[in-house]
């Protein structure tokens, strides 16, 4: 429902009462999901421009120059609320929506990333959500032939009633053929093509902008759309063919707020007159509100000159897609909808689109760090607990369900980033953030999330080209949450400026809290980062090579995986060193490292298990800190020649080789055999795979 305050503002601006369709249009377009009303002022503080940015935030997707002949279209979206109510369809349509954002720029989608957050896996409900979200993403992405090349998985009890499903999509387009989502000329026609419209997903944008109540699963099911990836594939090919004719002047996908959202946002440069009766329908007896607001999937809207209608329609028919001329661009800045030969909506377009009054929330800082309490278990037990935490364990149960090879660009999936070949160069994909650190220190934690993604890229000698984000938080009505949001966005901007990387798009998902579980999600400013560099391949490290650690280790155990498995508490990490990350990037570029990985969740231990599972190392000082601290800007490197590290602060740990991972600390030696590591890494597979 539209709030009383909003209704008063609208009535006083119009000088009249509003029609039922106008009320619903405002409710959806002025929702947080569409208008960013509570975060707009903060988002303006982020750096969004740069030498390679062609189109920044505001269109369906951003456009960033990769080479002179290739630009990238990049977008990121959340589909959190629908994925709780119906995990398979919610996740699948999340993929569909962001892919349409890419094609509406005239770009062919080439890759996806899927960072996901769930409750803890001991809950049957979580396992159910996890299984079906992964299937939904896989079945949709696989069918449309867009590879998933990277992801992130977080398991934390704060997501028990609010899983997060975020998707990054990237496409390629000739920089001279980019199509925007803004109409260009009065008199042009608006063509709706794709699936027919039914009563599905009514009011999804306003649904996404409130918290989930206990019986939301049953009550809200009509708000969740069902996807059809086959039609999406046809829509991709049809859109590519239409764009290639040069006859598509503007294009937008139908997402939140359906046809009303797409047509009003697309026409906001001029105005539009829509004939709702002309929309191809799947059901009979639909009224104007249902037609204009339904969120039926796989639909697009294009601006076409009147003389080109037949040519564009013929392409839609080639792909068995329905299409209709549903209205025209008008010079007056009004948004008019006709239905049954009556005007059912007539609004100043700038009031409906962009006229949302901003709201401010009271903020209140909090402090959640606890003093460190040393765990009682021995080091070997702690090692096995940390390695078998699902965030440190192998993810192949998930990844094998995604077609990551289609389109023949995928060079590697890890360990630190996905690597695609493009125009003879490497295009890198990394995503993630650490909500446990960000919860303890929202500003530093979010700055570190940016740095951590840059560290992943440094392992390939690459620099971040641009960032997209999904700002997932609980409800800003709580002053502590409003503070979290503010701190987090400020921290993100600070680190982006230091790294000179722009944030080019994304979305905001608030109200992620659950009455049913009495949970609020930990702050989750999820990042998707695209990198660019030279194509490099790494051979497995040779026996006898030296293992060394670059970067400073502090007793940062708060929010670590060790904290998750033992409740040890402790301080969260301070902001890591940008210089260290750049030093490692340069070392890789100069070809000096035989292998490298950055330290993140699970600290030095998981890094060793990842790239040096057969090696002997000695650690100095407190082994709990040395092995499990999650201080940022640290790298485990393998070098054949130690002189390469001269002048760079580092600690030599040991050598590659032997039959197991041997860690010596003082008089004690912990031995982790390949069988131990294999067993620890099987956590997700063992929990999820039932033969």
């Amino acid at each position: 429902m539209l709030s009383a305050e909003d209704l008063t503002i609208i009535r006083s601006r119009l000088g009249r009462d509003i029609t039922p369709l106008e009320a619903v249009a405002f409710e959806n377009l002025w929702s947080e999901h569409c208008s960013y009303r509570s975060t707009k002022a903060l988002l303006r503080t982020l750096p969004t421009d740069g030498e390679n940015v062609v189109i920044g935030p505001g269109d369906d997707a951003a456009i960033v120059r990769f080479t002179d002949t290739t630009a990238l279209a990049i977008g990121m979206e959340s589909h959190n609320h629908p994925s709780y109510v119906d995990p398979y369809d919610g996740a699948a349509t999340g993929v569909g929506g962001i892919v349409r954002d890419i094609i509406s720029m005239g770009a062919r989608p080439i890759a996806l990333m899927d960072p996901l957050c769930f409750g803890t896996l001991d809950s049957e409900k979580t396992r159910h959500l996890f299984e079906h979200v992964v299937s939904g993403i896989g079945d949709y992405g696989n069918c449309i032939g867009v590879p998933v090349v990277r992801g992130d998985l977080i398991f934390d009890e704060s997501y028990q009633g609010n899983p997060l499903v975020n998707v990054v999509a990237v496409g390629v387009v000739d920089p001279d053929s980019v199509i925007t989502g803004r109409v260009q000329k009065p008199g042009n026609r608006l063509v709706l093509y794709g699936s027919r419209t039914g009563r599905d997903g009514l009011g999804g944008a306003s649904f996404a902008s409130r918290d989930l109540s206990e019986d939301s699963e049953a009550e809200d099911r009509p708000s969740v759309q069902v996807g059809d990836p086959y039609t999406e594939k046809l829509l991709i090919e049809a859109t590519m063919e239409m764009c290639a004719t040069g006859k598509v002047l503007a294009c937008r996908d139908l997402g939140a707020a359906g046809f009303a959202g797409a047509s009003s946002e697309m026409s906001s440069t001029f105005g539009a007159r829509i004939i709702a009766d002309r929309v191809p329908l799947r059901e009979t007896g639909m009224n104007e509100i249902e037609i204009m607001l339904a969120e039926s999937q796989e639909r697009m809207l294009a601006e076409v000159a009147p003389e080109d209608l037949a040519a564009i329609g013929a392409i839609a028919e080639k792909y068995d897609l329905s299409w209709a001329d549903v209205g025209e661009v008008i010079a007056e800045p009004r948004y008019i909808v006709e239905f049954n030969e009556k005007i059912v909506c007539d609004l100043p377009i700038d009031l409906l689109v962009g006229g949302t009054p901003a709201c401010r929330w009271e903020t209140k800082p909090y402090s959640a760090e606890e003093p460190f309490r040393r765990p009682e278990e021995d080091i070997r037990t702690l090692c096995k607990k940390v390695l078998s935490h699902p965030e440190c364990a192998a993810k192949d149960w998930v990844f094998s369900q995604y077609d990551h090879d289609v389109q023949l660009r995928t060079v590697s999936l890890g360990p630190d980033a996905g690597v695609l070949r493009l125009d003879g160069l490497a295009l890198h994909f990394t995503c993630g953030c650490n909500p446990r650190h960000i919860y303890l220190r929202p500003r530093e934690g979010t700055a570190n999330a940016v740095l951590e993604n840059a560290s992943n890229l440094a392992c390939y000698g690459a620099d971040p080209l641009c960032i997209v984000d999904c700002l997932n938080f609980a409800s800003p009505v709580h002053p502590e949450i409003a503070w979290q949001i503010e701190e987090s966005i400020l921290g993100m901007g600070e680190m982006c400026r230091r790294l000179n990387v722009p944030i080019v798009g994304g979305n905001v998902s608030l109200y992620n809290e659950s009455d049913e579980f009495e949970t609020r999600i930990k702050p989750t400013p999820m990042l998707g980062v695209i990198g660019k560099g030279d194509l490099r391949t790494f051979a497995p490290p040779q026996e006898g090579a030296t293992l060394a650690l670059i970067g400073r280790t502090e007793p940062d155990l708060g929010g670590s995986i060790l904290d998750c498995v033992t409740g040890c508490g402790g301080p969260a990490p301070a902001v890591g060193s940008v210089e260290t990350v750049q030093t490692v990037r340069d070392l890789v570029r100069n070809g000096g490292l035989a292998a490298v990985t950055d330290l993140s969740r699970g600290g030095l231990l998981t890094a060793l298990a990842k790239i040096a599972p057969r090696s002997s190392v000695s650690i100095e000082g407190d082994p709990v800190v040395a092995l499990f601290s999650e201080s940022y800007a640290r790298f485990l490197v393998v070098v054949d020649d130690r002189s390469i590290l001269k002048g760079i602060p580092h600690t030599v740990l040991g050598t590659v080789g032997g039959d197991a991972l041997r860690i010596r600390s003082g008089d004690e030696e912990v031995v982790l055999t390949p069988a131990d590591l294999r067993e620890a890494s099987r956590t997700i597979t063992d929990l999820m795979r039932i033969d």
Partner: protein
Amino acid sequence: MRTAVIQFGGSNCDRDVVHVIEEVCGADADLVWYKDGLNRSYDAIILPGGFSYGDYLRAGAIAARTPIMGDVIRAAGKGTLVLGICNGAQIAAESGLIPGVFTINAYPKFLCRPAYLRVENTTSPFTRLYSEGEVVMFPIAHKEGRYIIPADELARLEKEKRIAFRFCDESGNVTWTANPNGATGNITGVLSEKENVLVMMPHPERAAEEILGSADGKKIFDSMIAYVEES
């Protein structure tokens, strides 16, 4: 070699196959939209992977009933090479170009990962550049790739040496643990009676360049080109 790569609505490996034939192997390939039919003769026809008709009903079942498959069956009858990869294999099986069917994997999830294959036939136009028993690595990516065939037909396939590839371990042992989808006899590549049709679930086009992890699959296309140039 002039190749037609058939493009159904849900094909998604069509461009990949064209890339490998043209850019990697130096032969010619035309993308043919399924509604247009085959309007000229080709040396080879490739049914690429994907999700023709969204795999609704049964993978490949609807595509098998489109008019263009009539053209493909007629061409195969005249000796034209036909290679069905992944969804293309499912379409070919549904069209009766080879015996047996592909059904849902034993563990009923999509499975995308590299797989080792043992080459069982080295006489066909598709496999003549391999050596018998050679172990190769191709990626697989399917949910309905479990090959099923009755025992009597299997015996005939084996007798006629029409099994092209079986899943195996790194050393070439054909074992149950090396079988990713539960296929009968680990079979994942089958030839027609005249050996001019090969259907296979693994993707040779994804194993045609070292930078992508394996070049073992290139020999399939090179074999086809060599065969066509000789004949």
